[in-house]
């Protein structure tokens, strides 16, 4: 059946058969016998003391089975939601880590903080009862912005976290940077805001929990990017359920972008409640509920300075950032603006000295955590913006200043002053490719044509690198990771030669079922159609850290590659026996085991058959069966990157920015499936464009209300915002991953915001505009034009 479809091919995605025919199986599609409905009651206040909760009216409401609060959780001695990273400040003092109760205790700290869980026979009954819950709040002033939160006299979220500072983190050689600044011919300065974002996966979060008294086992179906991690964090650290008594299933998941890579309180509450009510419970978030409970992303305020010599060479880079954590520490929270930010500030440049200080700050907002790119888009934005500022202040062409500072291809592996060592790359090659693809040569003609129509046209560059393939465990451990970051895969060859792969990553839109099948098809010579990829169920998959940080192919694919190697190695032993040859003389190619230099051979299917019907088999030295497992812990991060070029046109009358051209030439290492890589780039770029031009999560200072609390007020990028994109790869191979892959899931989101904003600033530079904060909304652009020194007219 079917053919080998291997590395470099673009077959249609296997998973789309079920998605496009409406046969996906999402959490909310699942029904369990006797299932009840759960609804969370959430705080309407940003900051308040929880005086008391009167359950009586809710409990008396029709169909109600249970009403649970933080007091009940405390009485059952349940743990706090754990943070997966423990960072330390410059003096080695651990971050402040206040408890994060799954249902609020004593105080609520953001609009959406969970106060109670109502279980009823139907969703409508649960909602009706939830409205009858009487919660007595003593409302306190909220603080939502980082600048406000660290000011003296600001509302304090926690008694033992002075000035709301969780950690005063730093990285780099402060003294070396200061020395370099003293010698600088020029210092470029930039203050910027990295806007707060809301992930908005198409499928809202949902969960079903069930307890089986006969076996004392729990099952949690949840919209998660990492079911094994949820099993560990929730079972071992929150609910005290032994790992073998807890099954976590993440079936089809409709998009994650990071939003679903955390252990959420909802998961713990519903699992705990399922045993208390002895019935399965389902909870499905509404979109509005997602806005006030899905972890948000970004939200930095930054001051940056770049020191240069008279030729435009970067001497030192200094960055001071205030990073918003929201009301509590989420699973990866403090890691994102620190370890995934500071080490990226070297970019693709040879800057010899870098210093970064990040104050991680609590505020009365939804906890902030990883969102596609996570820390790296923020770093790229600061660096690629200030490079443009420096170029314009020194009168050096923006491409030229980048060339003068870029790490040449020959200099790899390249050790940066901020921990990371890039193994491979060719930023200049990506830049050269992008300049041609974007037809930069003729930009002047296009700009003049726009000017004739009264429009301003601008071009923006972002030459960037990121670190993904999270992560080398030992390295991560030194930085504060509390878990491992390897991945695992099992390759099960069936007696008939078909293959089932059990892998610890989770596919929620990335096309793993296709890409991973291509790897197996190529490496084992079996038909693409004869390979299935299984993921997302702790009872079926051995173990896994899940999917985030562009790690699935890099780390999971490596484990898979290693496991297939083991299958081939065992197959050779079987073939040697059957072909009466020495093992060293057996070759495996294109699905055939043969004796070198002869025409004697056995097919992959024959070897599989022999392994499961071991009549003629070396049982004394070899076990029957053909199933191999591998764990892979990467030796380094991978460093994809490239050059993005955005071209925008601005209508000075309304301030509207239109993205008219977009070019990306990226180095993602080996490309397994070009179509899927292109799709990942498309999606990633659109998300980055969303941050640059449209998306903004806005809170009201004082009340802590989320003003952009729905799609009516939070602007997502739409298809008609985008031009056709020009996407190409210019790859160097990763030197330490088995297949040379680097990952491509986040590059689009990391490279694009700076390219777009640099283009906007370029379009307005003749008016003296030097910076525009994201999102560059029409109102914001119009305001800049109002304040600009020159009259509003096309040049």
């Amino acid at each position, binding site marked *: 059946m079917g053919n080998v479809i291997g590395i470099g091919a673009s077959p249609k995605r296997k998973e789309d058969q079920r998605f496009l025919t409406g046969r996906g199986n999402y959490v909310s599609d699942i029904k369990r016998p006797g299932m009840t409905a759960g609804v969370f009651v959430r705080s309407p206040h940003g900051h308040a003391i929880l005086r008391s909760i009167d359950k009586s009216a809710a409990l008396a409401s029709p169909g109600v089975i249970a009403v649970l609060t933080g007091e009940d959780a405390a009485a059952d001695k349940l743990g706090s939601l754990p943070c997966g990273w423990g960072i330390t400040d410059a003096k080695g003092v651990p971050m402040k880590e206040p408890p994060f109760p799954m249902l609020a205790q004593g105080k609520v700290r953001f609009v959406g903080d969970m106060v109670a869980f109502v279980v009823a026979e139907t969703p*409508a009954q649960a*909602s*009706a009862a939830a*409205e009858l819950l009487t919660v007595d709040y003593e409302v306190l002033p909220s603080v939502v912005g980082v600048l406000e939160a660290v000011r003296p006299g600001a509302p304090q979220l926690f008694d033992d976290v002075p000035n709301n500072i969780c950690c005063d983190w730093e990285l780099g050689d402060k003294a070396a940077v200061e020395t370099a600044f003293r010698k600088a011919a020029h210092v470029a300065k930039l203050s910027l805001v990295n806007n707060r974002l809301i992930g908005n996966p198409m499928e809202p979060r949902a969960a079903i929990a069930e307890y089986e008294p006969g076996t004392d086992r729990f099952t949690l179906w949840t919209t998660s990017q990492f079911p094994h991690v949820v099993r560990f964090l929730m079972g071992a650290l929150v609910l005290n359920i032994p790992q073998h008594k807890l099954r976590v299933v993440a079936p089809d998941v409709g998009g994650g972008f990071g939003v679903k890579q955390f252990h959420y309180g909802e998961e713990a509450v519903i699992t705990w409640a399922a045993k208390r009510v002895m019935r399965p419970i389902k909870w499905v978030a509404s979109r*509005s509920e997602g806005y006030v409970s899905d972890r948000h992303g970004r939200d930095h305020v930054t001051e940056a300075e770049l020191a240069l010599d008279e030729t435009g060479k970067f001497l030192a880079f200094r960055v001071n950032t205030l990073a918003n954590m929201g009301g509590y520490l989420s699973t990866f929270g403090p890691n994102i603006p620190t370890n995934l930010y500071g080490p990226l500030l070297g970019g693709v440049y040879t800057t010899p000295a870098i210093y970064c200080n990040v104050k991680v700050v609590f505020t009365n907002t939804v906890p902030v955590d990883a969102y596609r790119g996570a820390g790296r888009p923020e770093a790229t934005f600061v660096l690629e913006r200030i490079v443009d500022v420096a170029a314009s202040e020194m009168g050096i062409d923006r491409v030229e200043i980048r060339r003068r500072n870029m790490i040449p291809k020959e200099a790899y592996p390249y050790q940066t002053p901020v921990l990371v060592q890039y193994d491979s790359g060719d930023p200049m090659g990506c830049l050269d490719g992008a300049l041609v693809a974007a037809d930069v040569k003729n930009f002047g003609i296009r700009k003049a044509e726009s000017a004739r129509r009264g429009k301003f046209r601008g071009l923006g560059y972002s030459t960037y690198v990121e670190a993904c393939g999270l992560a080398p465990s030992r390295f991560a451990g030194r930085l504060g990771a509390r878990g491992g970051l390897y991945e695992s895969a099992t390759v099960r060859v069936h007696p008939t030669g078909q293959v089932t792969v059990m892998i610890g990553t989770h596919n929620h839109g990335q096309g793993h079922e296709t890409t991973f099948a291509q790897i197996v098809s190529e490496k084992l010579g079996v038909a693409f159609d004869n390979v299935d990829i299984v993921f997302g169920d702790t009872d079926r998959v051995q173990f896994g850290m899940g999917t985030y940080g562009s790690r699935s192919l890099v780390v999971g694919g490596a484990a898979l590659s290693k496991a297939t190697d083991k299958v081939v190695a065992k197959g050779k032993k079987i073939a040697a026996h059957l072909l009466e040859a020495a093992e060293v003389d057996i070759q495996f190619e294109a699905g055939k085991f043969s004796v070198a230099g002869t025409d004697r051979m056995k097919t992959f299917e024959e070897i599989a058959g022999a392994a499961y019907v071991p009549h003629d088999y070396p049982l004394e030295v070899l076990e029957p069966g053909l199933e191999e497992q591998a764990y892979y812990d990467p030796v380094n991060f991978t460093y994809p990157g490239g050059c993005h070029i955005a071209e925008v046109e601005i209508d000075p*009358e*309304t*301030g509207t920015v239109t993205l008219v051209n977009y070019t990306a030439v990226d180095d993602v290492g080996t490309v397994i499936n070009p179509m899927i890589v292109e799709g990942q780039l498309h999606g990633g770029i659109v998300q980055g464009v969303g941050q640059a031009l*449209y998306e*903004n999560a*806005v809170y009201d200072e004082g009340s802590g209300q989320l*003003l*952009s609390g729905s*799609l*009516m*007020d*939070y*602007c*997502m990028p739409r298809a008609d915002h985008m031009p056709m994109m020009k996407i190409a790869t210019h790859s160097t191979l990763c030197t330490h991953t088995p297949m040379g892959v680097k990952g491509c899931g986040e590059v689009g989101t990391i490279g694009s915001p700076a390219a777009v904003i640099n283009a906007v600033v370029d379009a307005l530079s003749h008016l003296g505009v030097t910076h525009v904060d994201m999102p560059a*909304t*029409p*109102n914001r652009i*119009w*305001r800049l034009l109002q304040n600009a020194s020159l009259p509003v007219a096309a040049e």
Partner: protein
Amino acid sequence: MKPFAYHQPDRIPDAAKLLTSIEDSKLLAGGMTLIPTLKQRLASPPALVDLSRLGHLKGITDDGATITIGAMTPHAVVAASKLVKAKIPGLAALASMIGDPAVRIRGTIGGSVANNDPAADYPAGVLGLGATVVTSTREIAADGFFRGLFETALEPGEIITALRFPMPLKAGYAKFKAPASRYALVGVFVAKFADGVRVAVTGAGSGVFRVPPMEEALSRSFDPSAIAAIRIDTDGLTSDIHAEADYRAHLVTVMAKRAVDAAVS
């Protein structure tokens, strides 16, 4: 959504009677505005009175001097209507800019006008054209119909049955879409009649309003340049996370110029 009774009357008087006899009951037209508020449990009427069986409320007729659009006519039908496109192309264009295809197929002109959302498009067309709101009991001139934020002259139990539009010499609509919702951040409808010009603005304030200085200027010269220097006062204009009042004021001028452009082209 909370439970409610559902009625589907065949005659206007029956609908009106249900509406007055069941306290807090609501008319249901396309449901594009009403159903989301029910789903979010922001409203919980005991009964809905569905107008969809009142077939004669749907459709567009022309008596030579006016065009009458039945209250239950969906936006998509107005947008595609040969008659409207020929006689008042600016109104067809307005309808084509509302929401997305699904909203245009379900949402109705009567529902939109009755709802009087401060950022809705139709109120600008109705006021700009000086249309007449025809109800189950009377006729109301547009100038007296819209009363600010979601408020209209409709009495309890009163049902809009049609909108009657006089035919302008020229008319145009320009809409600056709110980035997220794509309702009007500012929408301006301009209509030129033999006896003068009307300019109606939606989105900018708490309800649709006219701009007399622009009307006078355009009555003298129906050209964008005639109003380029007219800036409306920011008093009473909305300031929110999408746009500040002075930006909205600026957009009124820009959109008014573009509406005139659309009307003459």
